[in-house]
């Protein structure tokens, strides 16, 4: 009998529900800074997350070892689960399945020399930049999930994230930009994306931005780019629809939600449709089963301007007395699964970019952002534009510097009156939980138009 089965058998005997997750992960990381190699890191780690549900829920995190050595740890987990606490959980199971996605050019087949070559190239094309930081991280994950209800899920996948940060200093004026590109696949990712073009465009817009002027504060019609659609989807739709936040499970950390109950709430215009979908192939948050052995599926968080479906893990589903919808994610083997996003985006509509812009007399196009933040109920938010332009009489005009949207979620979505037919994603690491867990996500959407938004 495998160790994971022995652990499950032992812990199940004295639990109302139990599950065990084994993760083996190999990570590589390389960093360049301002033309120089700075650091590399290799990490191979694995272990078991063991959960027992009785009067309450307890989890223990155990490295591989002999069963005899870990028996006392298992007894301690069982002991803690007998204390008084919450103990509702979706205990469904009886699924046996496996999935695997490693892409074509497998992470394990790409040499460190080749990875260094990728970063050297990006560093090279940023040649005359004041600040340039380039990071490349990849990981290969093997995961086995078993539970006392008869499930056994095997997952194997690889993820890559490339991050850069650049800063331009001209005439004592500074502008910076950082971008993240991530995938769940292999190194063929670097053949699919025109990174050189994206980096060169970013540099070019920063150089113009340094010399651009700020706009006069006031109300403007606004066109947002996919990066703004993405961050808004993530912050103002994904987070407030995590059901564990709504019930207060994260109240002392990332906070609660402006959504207080399960009744559908109007959050914006009828054009607002926001999806969270782990099954977007090759996305940075791609998975077919979550870290609790629940099958992943697409979820409409907001539909036609109303709240629609929450993101659930087993624990929050148990409190709602429903089944999990596959949102249970843990960032590492030694972390508890929480209700998390995957790929969150505004569903595309049918407007071209030209159509969105064409009937705006006095407006602003904000393509992407630098600073952003939002309050802990995910209502009061701020986005500072990075690459942004005036729109005058239906045409894109001069570049402007750091326009600020400071608004709230309902005002923002209520102003949205047209959605573009394009769709683009950017990668991110989403933080939640204590200890904080950063999980891999995509966020995105099309261009979209908002009417009469106060910009400063």
């Amino acid at each position, binding site marked *: 009998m495998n160790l994971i089965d022995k652990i499950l058998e032992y812990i199940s005997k004295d639990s109302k529900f139990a599950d065990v997750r084994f993760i083996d992960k190999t990570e590589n990381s390389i960093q360049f*800074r301002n033309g*120089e*190699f700075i*650091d*590399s*890191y*290799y990490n*191979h*780690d694995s272990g078991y997350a063991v959960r027992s549900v009785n009067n*309450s*829920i*307890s*989890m*223990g*995190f*155990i*490295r591989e070892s002999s069963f005899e050595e870990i028996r006392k*740890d298992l007894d*301690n987990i069982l002991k*803690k689960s007998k*204390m*008084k*606490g*919450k103990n509702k959980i979706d205990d469904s199971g009886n699924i046996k399945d496996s999935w695997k996605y490693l892409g074509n050019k497998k992470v394990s087949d790409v*040499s*460190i020399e080749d990875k*260094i070559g990728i970063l050297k190239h990006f560093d090279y094309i940023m040649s005359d930049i004041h*600040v340039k*930081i380039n990071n490349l991280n990849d990981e290969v994950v093997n995961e086995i999930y078993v539970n006392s209800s008869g499930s056994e899920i095997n997952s194997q996948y690889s993820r890559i994230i490339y991050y850069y940060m650049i*800063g331009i*200093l001209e005439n004592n004026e*500074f*502008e*910076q930009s950082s971008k993240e590109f991530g995938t769940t696949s292999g190194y063929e990712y670097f053949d699919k994306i025109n990174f050189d073009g994206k980096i060169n465009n970013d540099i070019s817009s920063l150089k113009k931005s340094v010399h651009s002027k700020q706009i006069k504060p006031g109300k403007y019609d606004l066109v947002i780019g996919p990066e703004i659609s993405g961050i808004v989807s993530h912050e103002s739709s994904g987070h407030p629809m995590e059901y564990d936040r709504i*019930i*207060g*499970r*994260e*109240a*002392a950390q990332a*906070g609660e939600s402006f959504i207080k109950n399960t009744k559908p709430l109007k959050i914006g215009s009828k054009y607002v449709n926001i999806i969270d979908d782990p099954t977007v192939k090759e996305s940075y948050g791609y998975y077919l089963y979550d870290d609790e052995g629940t099958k992943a599926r697409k979820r409409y968080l907001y539909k036609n301007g109303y709240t629609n479906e929450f993101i659930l893990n087993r*624990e929050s589903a148990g409190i709602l007395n429903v089944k999990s919808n596959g949102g249970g994610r843990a960032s590492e083997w030694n972390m*508890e699964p929480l209700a998390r996003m995957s790929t969150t985006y505004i569903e595309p509509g049918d407007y071209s970019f030209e159509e969105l812009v064409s009937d705006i007399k006095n407006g602003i196009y904000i393509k992407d952002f*630098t*600073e952003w*933040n939002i*309050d*802990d109920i995910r209502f*009061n938010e*701020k986005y*500072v534009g990075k690459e942004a332009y005036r729109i005058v009489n239906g045409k894109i005009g001069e570049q402007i510097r750091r326009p600020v949207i*400071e*608004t709230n979620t309902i*005002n923002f979505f209520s102003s949205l009156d047209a959605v573009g037919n394009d769709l683009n994603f950017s990668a991110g690491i989403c*933080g939640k939980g*204590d*200890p*904080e867990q950063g999980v891999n996500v995509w966020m995105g959407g099309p261009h979209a138009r908002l009417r009469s938004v*106060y910009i*400063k």
Partner: protein
Amino acid sequence: MNINNISEELKKSFDEYSIENIKENIEELRFSNNSMDIYNIWDYNDINIFVSKNKKIASMNVKDNDYLKKLNEIIKYVPDNNSYYGMNPDIKEYKDNIHEIDNNDIYDLFNQLIDSAIKNNGNKNSGLIYKISTETTIKTKYGEKTFHNNGIEIVIRSFNNNFSGQEGLHFGYNAIKKIDPYKIGEEAAITSNITGKTLNIPEGKYDVLLSPEFSGSIITANIDSLSYYNIDSGLSPFIDKINTKVGSNKLSIYDDPLNNNGIGFRPFDDENTNTNKVNLISNGVLKSYMHSYSTASESGYKTTGNAGIIYPHPWQIHVKSGNKHISDLINDIDNGFYIKNSWYTRFQDEKSGTFSTVPRDGVFYIKNGKIVGTVSGIRISDSILNILNNIDDISDEEKYVKWWNEINSSIMPSMIARNINITKGF
């Protein structure tokens, strides 16, 4: 795997190395709505190594028997790190004190916290308690040292309808006996009960009284700007400002790793340099960046005991207290805010330190020295240099604050910052 064996192997292949072995025993109780959500237990060892060969460097964890083969493969291909200047060869002795953590039952502590908060009208309470016990050994080419550290971290956020108050505290091994869960629960609940009239205050420049938590949040978000790594990267408002004024005369900031009342206690760094109290900013003048041996050698300074060999970082930041009671500080504000906490600090420009942060857990408007109501939906949108230069007064009381990833374990007073930019949404 035995670190002595690893050391012998590394000695054969590399010029210098550091092996870090951490044995952790951590228990965490998380709670919300006054009841326990989960009890998490971590109990294991980690071994991490850093090696160098001439200017080539690599880091990895040690799990597999073939780690040396992997390390040699990496070192073969990585380019030189021209910013790397070696590890500290001059290792001073450190005598470890083993302090057994009291057998505190954190479930009892949790019950006492909740009882206290509810008795003080904090109806709904969320938070966590960590009980932490670690044994850390660092072995380099030049010596081996071990230290033990124990501590407790407590966070409680207490709600009274839409209002909240939060306490986030840490207790090093010397302070565990002083934990008073009733006082902590009471403080969180009292803040949530300062409700009053909700006011709509326009954007503009205001005086702001920063609580210890809010001070901790802002300092935590900005402190890496004093790491030589950030200076060398060109991403800090403190570049070329040693011995120049970066804050008000009343402001002094230290790294205070030997303070064993806090959980950030750390007697030596990642390359075995003994730590000490480091004056970073003294009476408003920038005195030192945070250095490892390598970054200090690169820049002509001495190590400050803040390795991270490549990324120097603080252990336990301490802002020196002043001499005014908190009630006097409130009284000194004619038109401003008392902000108890903030989160989500993000930068639009790391070179100038321009950022915004979102206040929470107690945001009060002060008029003519009196709290007259609460405020929501505001932001501090300013720069760290402007805030540090406008610190006008500091409280006589310090708190050991720590919260999530927003406040590193630190020791903070309350501070008045004058003329700070407040923005809000439309």
